[in-house]
């Protein structure tokens, strides 16, 4: 089946000035699109041609098909992890799980920030739900994703340099801080936690 680039859940300029329309032109319009195009080209005539995206991610060996499929999924998930007027703190069961793990939301933020800043090279930093209902922070490299593990992704931030170089240059700490202060979509994470 032909994989498609899903529509963005908001306009390309909706997250400015924290994430510029120019960043979306490249990050969504070029990088995300290229992963979709590459995936469709790579799966032609293979056993993955008629599989769904998550099925490909969970079954493909390390290499081009996995990398492109996982990057399609990770980016779609990431766009939904942000919203105009985001930030604030989670509520309900997710807030309780975060407090249980880190003591407070502020302590969680510090831990998430440190993990994302310390994720060396290209990758993603995730808040995940473990099978026992507890939450944790996980770093993955390059295209790797919690989908291939028992963890359920709740929130992610993309720390490939292309995610922040136009708006923040080398200042990854400032980018992650801004993601938590102004962009993160906690209602999306709460729904993921409940689901």
């Amino acid at each position, binding site marked *: 089946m032909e994989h498609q680039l899903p529509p963005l859940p908001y306009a390309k300029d909706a997250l400015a000035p924290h994430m510029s329309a120019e960043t979306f032109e*490249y990050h969504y319009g*070029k*990088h995300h699109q*290229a992963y979709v195009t590459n995936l469709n080209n790579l799966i032609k005539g293979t056993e993955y041609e008629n599989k769904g995206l998550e099925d490909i991610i969970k079954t493909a060996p390390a290499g081009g098909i996995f*990398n492109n499929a996982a990057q399609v999924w990770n980016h779609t998930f990431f766009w939904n992890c942000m919203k105009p007027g985001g930030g604030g703190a989670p509520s309900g069961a997710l807030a309780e799980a975060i407090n249980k793990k880190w003591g407070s939301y502020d302590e969680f933020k510090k831990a998430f920030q440190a993990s994302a800043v310390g994720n*060396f*090279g*290209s*990758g993603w930093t995730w808040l995940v739900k473990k099978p026992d209902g507890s939450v944790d922070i996980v770093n993955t*490299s*390059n*295209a790797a994703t919690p989908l291939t593990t028992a963890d359920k992704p709740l929130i992610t931030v993309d720390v*490939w*340099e*292309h995610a922040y*170089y*136009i708006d923040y*240059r*080398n200042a990854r700490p400032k980018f992650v801080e801004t993601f938590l202060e102004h962009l993160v979509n906690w209602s999306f994470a709460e729904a993921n936690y409940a689901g």
Partner: protein
Amino acid sequence: MTKSWFCLSHNVARIALLAGLTAAGTAWAQFTQSPLPYAYTALEPQIDAMTMELHYTRHHKSAVDGLNAQIKNYPELANMTIEQVLCQVSKYNTAVRNNGGNHYNHEIFWKVMAPAGQGGKPSEVLAAAIDKAFGSMEEMRKLFSAAAAGRFGSGWAWLVVTPDKKLAITSTPNQDNPLMDLPEIAVKGTPILGLDVWEHAYYLSYQNRRGDYIKHWWDVVNWNEVNRRYEEAMRQ
């Protein structure tokens, strides 16, 4: 397994350094960035001035600071060359590996570039070795470019002299390099040419078009320095 040949050869250099240190009776200096051998604007239009400035003053500098910060954990680092650190980097923590690799890789990178038209050409001896290893200069460039383009995520492409004195092309993830004594380094050797394919190396001018960056980068290769490194590696 015995120590690699290049680690042994760097040990000789270290003994000389230590002898000098004893004579001088002073603490060895911390790791430092060599001055950039040209202006930030010198590689334009292939590499823009803003990229050069951020790359040298932020990315490379932060690695040197990060490496020097590890001297408190490993005081012996202050008496070692960066090559000496990397050929036994498996003894040290991840901060030494990442910052030490970062420092060495960028030191090479600045030197193997020169303004377009000023980098000379491969020497007869290097050209002959390239023909022998890869068939032709064109084929070497194709293989090297493919290694750079195919490095998924952040990393480097390398032309190296292997321990048996042959040329090889390889790529490494993140800030690893072929000097490192790590099992995951598939091709070990002394780098004579390196290309940074972290996005920070090209994003301001080329964005997602890494292939265009690689293509234009060949115009600013400093073959005079690559020739010198080749001869030095062959003598080691």
